[in-house]
């Protein structure tokens, strides 16, 4: 006898939705669309609830309701309470076409902070380290064999380093789309740039091939997990466990 608990009901509903989504394999249909809109509604509602409960309320309301309260007139409240309230209200004015311009202040601040984070992280986290890593490919300890190192291993290491360097440079050259205008008026790259760019395209294709294989591997596993889930539901219904 199957005990219909909430978890079982949830599992059955999940299995039903899984089958409705898989019906898309045949073609787009009403069942698939119902499952999609149901999913979007729940996902958006959940996201809103967690944003309000975990971020907005603690930042804007809890200071007033907290133990001891908050002196809203104090300097501490200015930065932690008043200004956030003002910024939040100004941002909500973006919903009104007439008052949307007043919401430009918080948006400007968001944009400025986001740009700074991207610039700072890009320079310190990617540009410098990766450039140093590419330069270290030609370090003597990488190029020259170590003491007692077999030749095959040294060759493999050296060739790999050179290939990585070549792939890095050729890929960067490919993303450079500047060209010169020749006498006929047409624009084209120089011969060396064109050759390097083509090599970079090949390395990019190899990279994307590896990424594609990885994504396919993950998808296969997910597909298997879904059917495993369906099998478990069936077993539960049959077995009553």
């Amino acid at each position, binding site marked *: 006898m199957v005990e219909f608990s909430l978890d079982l009901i949830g599992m059955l509903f999940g299995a039903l939705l899984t089958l409705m989504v898989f019906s898309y394999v045949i073609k787009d249909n009403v069942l698939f669309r119902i499952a999609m809109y149901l999913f979007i509604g729940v996902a958006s509602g959940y996201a809103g609830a967690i944003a309000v409960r975990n971020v907005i309320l603690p930042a804007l309301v809890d200071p007033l309701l907290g133990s001891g309260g908050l002196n809203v007139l104090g300097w501490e409240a200015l930065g932690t309470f008043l200004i956030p309230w003002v910024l939040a209200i100004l941002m909500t004015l973006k919903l009104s076409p007439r008052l949307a311009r007043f919401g430009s202040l918080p*948006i400007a601040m*968001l944009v400025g902070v986001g740009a700074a984070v991207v610039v700072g992280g890009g320079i310190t986290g990617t540009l410098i380290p990766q450039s140093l890593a590419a330069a270290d490919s030609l370090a003597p300890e990488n190029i020259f064999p170590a003491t007692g190192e077999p030749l095959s291993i040294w060759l493999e290491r050296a060739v790999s380093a050179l290939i990585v360097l070549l792939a890095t440079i050729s890929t960067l050259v490919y993303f450079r789309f500047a060209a010169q205008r020749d006498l006929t008026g047409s624009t084209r790259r120089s011969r060396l740039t064109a050759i390097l760019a083509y090599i970079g395209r090949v390395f990019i294709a190899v990279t994307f091939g590896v990424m594609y294989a990885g994504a396919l591997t993950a998808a296969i596993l997910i597909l298997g997990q879904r059917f495993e889930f369906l099998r478990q539901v069936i077993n539960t219904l049959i077995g009553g466990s």
Partner: protein
Amino acid sequence: MKIGAYMLWAATAVGTGLIVLLGYFVQLDAAAPIGLLGTIFGLRLLIMRWAVLLAAVGLVLGLVNLFTVHWRKISDQERGWGYSALLILTFFITLILGLVFGPDSRVVLLLFNAIQLPVEASLGALLAITLTLAGFRTLQRRRDLIGLAFIFTALLVLIGSGPGIVPNASPGFELFSGLRNWLAQVAAAGGARGVLLGVALGSILTGLRVLLAIDRPYGD
């Protein structure tokens, strides 16, 4: 808005951005800095807290816009308005339950596990069929060296990754495994590094244009 307001927005973006950017290049010790640097550090933290709060407010505003769009669809009785009605219904049920009982309540988690998780996982599973079909048609639609390199690299990585055409215990699997490792860790790594550098350069340039008020996506 006139020129005055526009300059205020630009000044806000540039000012806050420069203060946040300063923290990336000035290494601070574990101890809280004092003096001007301490003030700037404190201001930097305050600004980022405001940004985190505003990001959550922005998410809520996005949900309001989602509701508005679908409500208009229902009001105008557009094609497919029934789906929009279903969306709004489930949206409000989940939101109200989440606000009242909390997003970590059992009811809300049940909705998550019964609806959102299965549907999203099933969509990921459909991805396997889609990717396989795309791989099957690659050489039919792109018959050049690039397509050839792409599909054969994928095949080699798949064969060398796990069980398949060549079983793990077979002698040939070591060859394909080594080939797979070389492709992923040497050839693809070089290309990936170039891609990462290119992406980083583009992001840095875009960010600098914003910090220099050349681009003003925040409007007037």
